């Protein structure tokens, strides 16, 4: 395949596949954790192999793309952005994999009041919406959708910041649930990390479309 445009389309599709795979991993990890469904948790764990294989494929394909085509301008930004997007997606996959393992380790369903108080659902809905924006930004090269992610990440960060205080208060009231609270704290942190990684992906998409580097900039 000599045509650089065709090569980009192929690479982009593999990137999209990786995005969809990691998105489904995160969704399933949430469902498994909240409903204590170990079958779904096992599925997430098994999917990790596919994520790793796809991660390797994208890296090797991009290596070849760069080495054989000497890309510049938009082609170079595409390759660099996809490398970073892939790296961040693989790490998202790792977070989902960890959550699935925690679900199995916890070996019990979370108390509904705990899910309510820690705003697990709000956090997950926000993450879901961030994923949607990322997919739109990635497939349609949509800057506006990419920029939406930053605000939503702040919501995630706020929920996570409240978690510690809530757990501190609640664990005193109900010491029997201490294991659940501690596990919820760890899982919450994992989702917060997924939010950060989605933000990184959004920055890479903006870099590709607009040639602007937003990394480490406060105002985005």
């Amino acid at each position, binding site marked *: 395949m000599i045509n650089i445009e065709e090569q980009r389309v192929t690479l982009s599709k593999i990137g999209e596949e990786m995005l969809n795979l990691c998105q489904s991993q995160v969704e399933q990890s949430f469902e498994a954790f909240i409903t204590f469904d170990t079958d779904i948790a096992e599925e997430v764990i098994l999917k990790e192999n596919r994520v790793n294989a796809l991660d390797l494929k994208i890296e090797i394909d991009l290596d070849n793309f760069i080495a054989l085509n000497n890309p*510049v301008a938009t082609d170079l930004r595409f390759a660099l952005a996809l490398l970073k997007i892939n790296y961040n997606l693989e790490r998202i996959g790792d977070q989902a994999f960890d959550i699935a393992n925690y679900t199995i380790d916890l070996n019990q369903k979370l108390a509904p009041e705990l899910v309510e108080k820690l705003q697990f659902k709000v956090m997950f809905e926000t993450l879901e919406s961030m994923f949607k924006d990322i997919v739109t930004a990635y497939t349609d090269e949509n800057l506006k959708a990419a920029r939406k992610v930053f605000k939503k990440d702040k919501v995630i960060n706020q929920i996570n910041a409240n978690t510690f205080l809530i757990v501190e208060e609640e664990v005193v009231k109900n010491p029997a649930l201490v294991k659940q609270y501690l596990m919820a704290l760890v899982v919450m942190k994992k989702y917060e990390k997924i939010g950060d990684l989605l933000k990184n992906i959004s920055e890479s998409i903006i870099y590709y479309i607009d040639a602007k580097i937003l990394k480490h900039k406060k105002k985005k």
Partner: protein
Amino acid sequence: MAKEIEITMEELKSKIKNTTTFEEDTSTSGGSRIEAKDVKVWYDDFNAIKGIDMKIKPNTITAFIGPSGCGKSTFLRLFNRMNDYVEGFRMEGKIKINGDSIYKKKVNVEELRKEIGMVFQKPNPFPKSIYENVAYGLKIQGIKDKKLIDGRVEKALRQADLWEEVKDNLKKSALALSGGQQQRLCIARTLAVQPSILLMDEPTSALDPISTAKIEELIHHLKEEYTIIIVTHNMQQASRISDYTAFFYLGELIEYDKTRKIFTNPEKKQTENYITGRFG
């Protein structure tokens, strides 16, 4: 008329920075400033250049890129008036070197070309010895002082990074050198007459990667003393060695900017399509 030419040459010399006499052998001619204003060129009815404005800073490397027939070589050859010999050539607009128009009637073209060296696509050494090739320009200038010529030959060969390879074989035929060495010899021959501008028309397109790398390294060092313009079809070469890049298309200057900008985020879609290999 002769007096007028002399004065013009004096003016031209005085404009060139840091000119010192050769005897000191520490001379650096210093690069010149080039300016083109609304330049148009025709070959009979064919409009090859369609009104180009460009300013080139001294001691910079500027790459001219664009598809074949876009006018980049024609534009390059305006700076040493090589197009004057082409039948049907006609030009409008102004080209100034260090503020002096080089297309004024009183300009002595041969004197002008001492200031503007040119290196071509294929190495073209004379069928003479290595020494005679480099000394040739000096001898036709009327310089007879053997010591002075020897000094300049050595200096030029050192500048062209060839001295160590040929110092024991200066009497050997230049045609016995490899392609890459021949091209460096041609650069040395150009440098011996101490120009302030170097024009290079695809200087490495006939060379292997090792020789190309040597010439590129050489060009990079020569920037300290010369203003260099290079026409190249090799995008990687343009991005590797130049400070500024000008993209030409159908006789127009489409984009001219810092090389880093052109190769990372060009302003014009046409530039992007060309450098990414989508057309041309």
